[in-house]
C-alpha cells in the first residue's frame, strides 16, 4: 500500500448530529489522508451517510469541527464543498432525470462566457469526462432513458470531473454489475495515484477486502474505531460492525422445493420501441428459489416487470399459477394473484418517500386491511410493526416518513410492503441492495423461512456469492432470451458468467 500517511486532508473531530429528538451521531472522529481508500463501515442506520452529508455541506448544523489541511472549514452547501475540493457520489442517485447527460455533468458549474453556456466546449469536455470513465453513452441522451447502472457511472464521472481532493462514494457499486464495478475499481486506482483521498462506503465485504487501506467503523451513531485494513480482517470487521460474531452470512442451504407453482409460456416483453424479452418459458416450483443471472440489459429485470404487468402493452403469453391460467394486465392484477415484485430502485419505483413507514408497508395490502374501503388505522399500525419487526427495520417511529430512513432500512420497508400481502410468488430484483451484512443474513434466513411456507422466489442479483448460495436453480439470460440453465449442483461462477456473455449455449 502506497498511501501517504503524513498529513490528513480532512480531519473531522467530535462530530455529533441530531434529527429532532433522535441522536444519530455522537462524538465521531474521522480522518482522510491523500491517496488512501478509507472504508466507512457500519450497519444500516449507523450514520455513515449522515457523517458524509455533514462533510459535503448537505447538513449544516452539527457538533464538532471539520478541518481541511489544518484550517477549519464549514461547507454551507454541496456546491461550496465542491469548490473546496470535496465531491460526493450519493447513495440515492441525484441526477436530474429530465435533463441530458451533458447538462447533468455540468450542473451548477456550466462552461459559460458572459453567462451563456458554451455548448460546443461543454460538449467536448463532457465527452472527455465520459471517455475517462470508459462510458459509451451519448452526451445528448436523457438520463431518464438510461439504465440505473449507467446513471450511477455518470454520477461517478461527475464527481471525478471536479478534480476533487476528496471523493466520497456512498455505496457506489450497489447498482453496478461486476463489469462496471471493475471500471469503478480501476478509476479508484487512478484517483489514488493522483493523490486523491477516497471515502468508500459499502456493505459488500469482498469490495472492502479488495480496496481498503484503512477502515473506520460506526455502530448506532457511535465511533467504534479506525484501523489499518491488515489489522481488521473481515470476521473482526463484522464483529466491530454488529457487535457479535457472525461466521457465515449465508444460512445453511435448505431444499424446500415442491410441486409446480408458476409457469410462464411464451412471454414476450416490449414497450413501444423495444423488445426486452423474447418468448421466454419459465417454471418455478413451490418453495423454490430460482436465480436469474445475466449482464446489464439482458432483460432479467424487464422479464419480472413484464410478468408483473408493469408494461402497458399486452403480450402473447400464458401464465399459470398453481395450475390455473391467470391473466395479468396490470400490477394490481398481479397483486390480486399474490405475485409481488420488489423493484430494483426503491426510491423511484418502490416507495413513496413522502409517506410514513406504516403507509408504505400497508400500500399493497390496503384492500385486505380495510373494510368496505374504510381503513382500520390500528390494524395498519400493528401490521406494519409486525412486518417491520420481522425485517428489523431500525426507525425511531413508524410514523416517520420513509424518506428519512437510512438506505438499507428503506430497502427493508420495501420488502415489508410485499410480505404484508402474503405473497405466493416473490419476484426479487436485487433484494439486498444496500443492506448490511447482519441484515443480509437475516434476509437470507427469512428467504428460507418463506420458501418453507411454500412461497416461490425468483431472484435477480448482481452479487455472485448470493446467487450461488441461495438459488436452487439458476437460469442465465442473454439479450432477452434464456440461454442456459444450471441445477444447484452444476452452478459455478465461471460457467454462469460465460453463458451470460453469450459465449456458449447450454440446452435448456
Amino acid at each position, binding site marked *: 500500500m502506497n498511501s501517504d500517511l503524513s498529513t490528513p486532508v480532512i480531519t473531522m473531530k467530535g462530530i455529533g448530529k441530531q434529527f429532532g*429528538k433522535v441522536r444519530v451521531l455522537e462524538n465521531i472522529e474521522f480522518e482522510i489522508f491523500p491517496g488512501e481508500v478509507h472504508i466507512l463501515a457500519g450497519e444500516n442506520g449507523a450514520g455513515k451517510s449522515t457523517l458524509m452529508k455533514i462533510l459535503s455541506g448537505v*447538513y449544516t*448544523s452539527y457538533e464538532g469541527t471539520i478541518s481541511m489541511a489544518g484550517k477549519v472549514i464549514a461547507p454551507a452547501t454541496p456546491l461550496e464543498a465542491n469548490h473546496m475540493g470535496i465531491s460526493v457520489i450519493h447513495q440515492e442517485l441525484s441526477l436530474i432525470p429530465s435533463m441530458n447527460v451533458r447538462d447533468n455533468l455540468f450542473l451548477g458549474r456550466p462552461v459559460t462566457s458572459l453567462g451563456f453556456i458554451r455548448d460546443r466546449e461543454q460538449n467536448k469536455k463532457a465527452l472527455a469526462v465520459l471517455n475517462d470513465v470508459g462510458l459509451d453513452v451519448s452526451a445528448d441522451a436523457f438520463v431518464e432513458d438510461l439504465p440505473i447502472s449507467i446513471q450511477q457511472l455518470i454520477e461517478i464521472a461527475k464527481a471525478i470531473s471536479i478534480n476533487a481532493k476528496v471523493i466520497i462514494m456512498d455505496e457506489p457499486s450497489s447498482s453496478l454489475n461486476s463489469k462496471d464495478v471493475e471500471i469503478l475499481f480501476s478509476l479508484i486506482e487512478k484517483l489514488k495515484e493522483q493523490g486523491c483521498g477516497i471515502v468508500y462506503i459499502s456493505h459488500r465485504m469482498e469490495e472492502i477486502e479488495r480496496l481498503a487501506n484503512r477502515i473506520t467503523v460506526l455502530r448506532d451513531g457511535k465511533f467504534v474505531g479506525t484501523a489499518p485494513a491488515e489489522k481488521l480482517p473481515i470476521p473482526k470487521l463484522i464483529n466491530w460492525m454488529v457487535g457479535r460474531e457472525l461466521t457465515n452470512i449465508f444460512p445453511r442451504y435448505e431444499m424446500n422445493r415442491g410441486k409446480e407453482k408458476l409457469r410462464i409460456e411464451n412471454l414476450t416483453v416490449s414497450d413501444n420501441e423495444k423488445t426486452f424479452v423474447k418468448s421466454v418459458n419459465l417454471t418455478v416450483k413451490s418453495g423454490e428459489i430460482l436465480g436469474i443471472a445475466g449482464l446489464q440489459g439482458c432483460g432479467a429485470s424487464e422479464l419480472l416487470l413484464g410478468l408483473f404487468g408493469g408494461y402497458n402493452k399486452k403480450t402473447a403469453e400464458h401464465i399459470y399459477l398453481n395450475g390455473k391460467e391467470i391473466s395479468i394486465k396490470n400490477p394490481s392484477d398481479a397483486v390480486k394473484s399474490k405475485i409481488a415484485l420488489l423493484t430494483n430502485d426503491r426510491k423511484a419505483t418502490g416507495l413513496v418517500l*413522502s409517506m410514513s413507514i406504516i403507509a408504505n408497508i400497508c400500500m399493497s395490502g390496503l*384492500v385486505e386491511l380495510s373494510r368496505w374501503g374504510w*381503513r382500520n388505522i390500528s390494524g395498519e399500525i400493528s401490521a406494519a410493526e409486525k412486518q417491520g419487526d420481522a425485517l428489523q427495520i431500525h426507525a425511531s417511529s413508524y410514523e416517520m416518513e420513509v424518506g428519512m430512513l437510512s438506505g438499507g432500512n428503506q430497502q427493508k420497508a420495501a420488502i415489508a410492503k410485499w410480505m404484508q400481502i402474503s405473497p405466493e410468488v416473490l419476484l426479487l430484483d436485487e433484494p439486498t441492495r444496500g443492506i448490511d451484512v447482519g441484515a443480509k443474513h437475516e434476509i437470507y434466513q427469512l428467504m428460507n423461512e418463506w420458501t418453507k411456507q411454500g412461497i416461490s422466489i425468483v431472484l435477480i442479483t448482481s452479487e455472485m456469492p448470493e446467487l450461488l448460495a441461495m438459488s436452487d436453480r439458476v437460469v442465465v439470460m442473454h439479450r432477452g432470451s434464456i440461454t442456459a440453465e444450471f441445477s444447484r449442483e452444476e452452478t459455478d461462477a465461471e460457467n454462469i458468467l460465460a453463458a451470460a456473455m453469450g459465449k456458449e449455449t447450454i440446452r435448456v
Partner: protein
Amino acid sequence: MTDSTQTLPLKNKGAFVQFLSSSAGRATIAFVLVIVLGLIFNADGAFFKLGMHRDALRQASVFGILAVGMTVVIITGGIDLSVGSILAVSAVLFSILTIHLDWPAWISILACIIVGAGLGAISGSLIAVAKLQPFIATLAMMTFGRGVAKYITGGQKISTYLTNSDGEVIIKELPGVFKAIDSRIMGGNIAIVSIIFLFCLLVTGLFLSRHKWGRELFSIGGNEEAARLSGVPVKLTKFLAYTVSGIMCAVAGIAQAAQETQGDPEAGGGYELTAIAMVVIGGTSLAGGRGGMGLTLLGILTIGYLEKILSINAVPESGRLLITGVIIVLAVLTQRKNRK
C-alpha cells in the same frame, strides 16, 4: 434546502414549537395573524360582532366548497382549473330547471350534481386514461364549460324575470329551494350554505384520512410509479379525484345561484385561483403527496377572514387585491421551509 427546521437546538424545543414548525402550525400562524389584523383594524368594533363572523364564513363557503374538491386533486399532484366554469354550468342549469321548467328541487339538485360529476369525469378520463397534463386538460375544460354555460343560456342571466314568446316580461315566483339554501338557522346565526360547505369538507376529509381511496391519492401524489407498481389502481383513483372535484363545483354552483337568486353564465370567473390559493395557504403541496382537509379549512378561513376584514374597513378593491397577493406569497414562503 437545508435541514434547519429539524436541527434547531432541540433539547429546549417544546411540543408547541414543534407544532409551529409543522404544516398545520404554519397554517395556523397565518390564520392567527389575519385574526390579529382584524382585532387591530376592527372597524369601530364591527369585528367583535357575531354577524361579521357569520358573514365571513358564509361568504367563504362557495369558495370553500371548491377548495375541498381542489384539495383532493392537488394531493394527487394535479390541478383543476375548470372549477369556476363547472360552477357556472351548475348555477345556470339549476336556475333553468327550477325557475323556467319548474322541476322539483331534489331532482334539479341531483341533475346538477350528475352534470358536474360528468364534466369532472371527462377531465379525469383525459388525465388518467389519455394521459394529458392536468393543467392542459382542465384548461380545456375551463373553456369548454364556460361555453356550455353560455350555450344553454344564450349568454343571458337566468332569473325570475323572463320574456315569453310574445315578448312580454313575466315575473315568476322565486322557487322555495333558493330561499331555503340562502337562509339561516339557529337564530340566524349560521347560514345553510356554510353548513353545506362544512358538510362537504367533513365528508371529503373523512374519505381522505380514513378511506383507502384517500391513502391512494397521497401515494399517487408522492410517487405515481411506485404506487402503480404497488398495485394501486392509479387510473381509477385519479379519475375519481376529478369527478369529486366536479361534484363539489356542482354543489358550489347551486349555492351560488341561490345566493344570487339567479344563474349567471359568467359566474365563477377567477374562482379557481382563489380555491387554489386557499389550498396552498393551508399547506397542501402543489407538488402532490402532502396535505389534508384540515389544512385546507385553515386556508379557507384565512382568505375568507382577510377578505371580510378588508371589506369592513372599506379598503377599495385595488387595495384588497394587493394585500391578498402579498399574503399569499408570505404564507407560501413560510410553508416552503417545511420541505427538505
